[in-house]
């Protein structure tokens, strides 16, 4: 399927999607509540078979916190980018996709460690690199007077 066909197909799977044909990949923005269901369908449907989660990125957009999932199908070689964001900075909570793609286990721990986004139903959500005395360094409002030199 090319980008527009894939867009049409994904549109039929869930409501309230924002689909944009990016320069490189098809980008789909989804509400956090719909994310897990859509991810599972993309993995399991005959037509899409997105079986390879090749990148999982946490982003601090300023007001919101978001997660970006890069998915590829090893069968059809097509790519989709799933995006979701939450405006709750105090207690951000998203659904874990670790039971769909097992690589998400480590990647979600990394996002939790560096951005403080919690993942519901994650098998083992602990900090990965840093210990608990640190804040969440990849957030834009993170202050560390000793280690970060600002000009």
């Amino acid at each position: 399927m090319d980008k527009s066909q894939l867009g049409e197909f994904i549109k039929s799977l869930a409501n309230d999607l924002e689909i944009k044909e990016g320069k490189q990949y098809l980008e789909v923005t989804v509400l956090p509540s719909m994310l897990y269901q859509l991810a599972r369908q993309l993995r399991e449907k005959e037509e899409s078979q997105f079986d390879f989660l090749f990148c999982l990125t946490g982003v601090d957009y300023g007001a919101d916190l978001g997660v970006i999932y890069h998915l590829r199908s090893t069968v059809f070689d097509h790519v989709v980018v799933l995006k979701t964001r939450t405006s709750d900075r105090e207690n951000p909570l998203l659904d874990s996709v670790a039971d769909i793609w097992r690589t998400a286990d480590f990647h979600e721990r990394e996002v939790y460690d560096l951005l403080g986004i919690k993942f519901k139903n994650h098998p083992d959500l602990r900090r990965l690199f840093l210990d608990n005395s640190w804040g969440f360094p990849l957030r834009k409002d993170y202050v560390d007077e000793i280690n970060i030199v600002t000009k």
Partner: protein
Amino acid sequence: MEEKDITSLPDEQQEYFINMGPQHPSTHGVLRLLVSLKGEMVKNIEPHVGYIHSGIEKMCESITYPQIIHLTDRMDYISAHINNEAVCLNVEKALEVEIPDRIKVIRTIMSELTRIQSHQLWWACFGMDLGGLTCFFYGLRDREKILDIFEETCGGRMIVSYNCPGGLMYDIHPNFQKRVKDFIKYFRKILPEYDQLLTGNVIFHERSKGIGRLTKEDAISFGVTGPTGRASGFSCDVRKHEPYSAYDRVQFKEILLTEGDTFSRYVARIEEMWESMNIIEQLIDNIPEGPFAVKMKPIIKLPEGEYYQRVETARGELGVFVISDGNKNPYRVKFRSPNFSNLSVLNHIAKGFKIADLVAIGGSLDLIIPDIDR
């Protein structure tokens, strides 16, 4: 003190923990594996990483694109050149800069040299992990020859920083072609010796065949790429699937095996060295004339948007994901590093084997720790 016989205890109390690392010769860096054992049998492995976490992604947010290249050297320092290339390709793609053929060809040759020296070092250390110390001397002796070629052209030996956005830092050294050709001629004779020493060795077969089997489905699900993934039959070679630089004009095989055990991961890397030599031979006599760098603006600003570039490093698929807000420094950079995903599969494949097999399995994954910690 009264001595206790552990085997007389109930089953669940017979388990005990040992820490493998953070300083352990077979973890090849500062990796700590908390291994749960029953007797000699591995029950569970919990990797503890972050000992050399340097916050490269955070640092990238406050520096410019040409500066980022020098940080990527420090991630996977064995295939530093390929990491550099990933960032450069991403910047060039975003700015829609046309890169002359000369640069593409030189980058490809350098990438393949990097791949060979990386696999040589891996072979050297893997042999040593399994008790064959001769491998270490052979491997490092031959790797030195490639590092000398790098030194002559780039000034650096491991941390080369030879790429810059728009091309290369300097032109190749006048001796470059001759030395590379000499090396290929030499290494074609030497590589069968590697086979004689290790590949056909019965003890080595006993240690590696059927050990740490990874199925294709699991390789995809865990995101295991590179020779490790291809040994399980997962076709994931970025050079084939999404050719960059000059890979679309050379003929080479993607090494695909089906077994997925430690031995086939070994074979995959040995075969890749042959393929890399084939690629270099096709290009080395046909380096086109032309400039070695395109003139770029002094301050590089990427247009607003998201850019993803993937390349094939010696260990798997490296992805550079840049979110730009139009400024001279990126808003967010994410490195999808191959070793990070490859480490996550360790517990899955090493469970149920002996602790000595864990050393073999860990060695066959070829982990580079700074690439995991970043």
